[in-house]
């Protein structure tokens, strides 16, 4: 399978198999006008199978989204066709408008203009709670 190498942009690597499309959606990559390659189920010596996303554009990459999905994802920064850096992720302390609160009793269920904000309440178990109603975030699919 041949995919053109990218000139300026990012390679998001070591994505757990099946999570590629979730990241595509949460990063709103459908709004970009550049070349984007999503490679699903690529062979990986470390992970068995993995997904990879290549984006040929120098845009603001929301690291909070990626850190929330999986802090073990690696990001390669490409400039002029060369690997110029690697970004490492952490679990973000706060997420704003990345995920939505699903609690029908939460104020966010009736007032559309309110930001959906979640905070990390349990780092060990990667649990986020809505700052308004304290409901546990459900992993977005």
């Amino acid at each position: 399978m041949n995919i053109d190498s990218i000139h300026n942009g990012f390679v998001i690597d070591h994505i757990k198999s099946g999570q590629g499309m979730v990241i595509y959606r949460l990063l709103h990559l459908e709004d970009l006008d550049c070349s984007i390659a999503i490679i699903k189920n690529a062979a990986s010596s470390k992970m068995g199978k993995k997904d990879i996303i290549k984006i040929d554009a120098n845009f603001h990459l929301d690291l909070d989204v990626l850190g929330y999905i999986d802090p073990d994802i690696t990001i390669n920064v490409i400039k002029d066709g060369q690997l110029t850096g690697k970004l490492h992720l952490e679990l973000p302390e706060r997420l704003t408008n990345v995920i939505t609160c699903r609690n029908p009793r939460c104020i966010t269920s009736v007032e559309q203009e309110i930001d959906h904000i979640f905070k990390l309440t349990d780092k060990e178990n990667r649990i986020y709670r809505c700052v308004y109603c304290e409901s546990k975030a459900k992993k977005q699919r």
Partner: protein
Amino acid sequence: MRNLIDIIDLTTAEIDELITTANDIIENPVQYQDKCKYKKLATLFFEPSTRTRLSFESAMYELGGNVLGFSAADSSSASKGESVSDTIRTVGCYADIIAMRHPKEGAPMVASMHSTVPIINAGDGGHNHPTQTLTDLLTIKRETGRFDNITIGFCGDLKFGRTVHSLIHALSRYANVHFVLISPDELKLPEYMIHDLLDKKGLSYSTTTSLDEAMPNLDILYMTRVQKERFFNEADYIRLKDTYILNKEKLRNAKESLCIMHPLPRVNEIAVEVDKDPRACYFKQVLYGKFIRMALILKLLEVK
């Protein structure tokens, strides 16, 4: 500017300070009768209430202040679809402090993000009700003389009972408090309370479905109502509403010093015959609620 959205917004020292002020108000009411002269409290009640709204209004009047507001969403612009943030920005132009009740969880927090005056959460759905917790704390202090070294039983709806959640949070700061959680399986304390608070802080607690079994060890029994408005399914409400009824017979094995509390309103979870028992503290609790709200208004308005 301070708000009170959640009881954990207050430090232990601040809670102690509020209780000290409330006790002083009880002892010297005349000294407080003009403290809030020319100040206005807005009570924005998007959900019905008797005690909380009247308690706030009574508290403000006893401080010499004035009150404005509404007592149901359909008598406000919320019925026209106005957002919480717009309502709050508007009311902030008329009042010095706002007490707000809303059926949706987190609404007072949204209000506090847009308000120019202090916001007091007077209950947001099944979530928080910090002034009830302050009321409960003042009751415990006045009736038992302490916050530490107590065994407190929470009985009834521990799932949707916001007063229970907030009081457990508040008492978790004190030493040697043992929580006895008495409820049917369907109304157990939520997992996040057990995991994130009780287990994480290493607090002492036990769970049971039997009130009789728990009764002899309790210093405080906190009864709750199974709240019809929290159920999406009426059949579940009907099945669970009469699980626990406290009556004279049930109190036979209780301590003489037991303090029986209830956030009210009760339906039939405490038989009327218990009202005459000297251990029944729930109407005194209502009175204490007014005094602690007076103390809170003074603190948030920074009135000395």
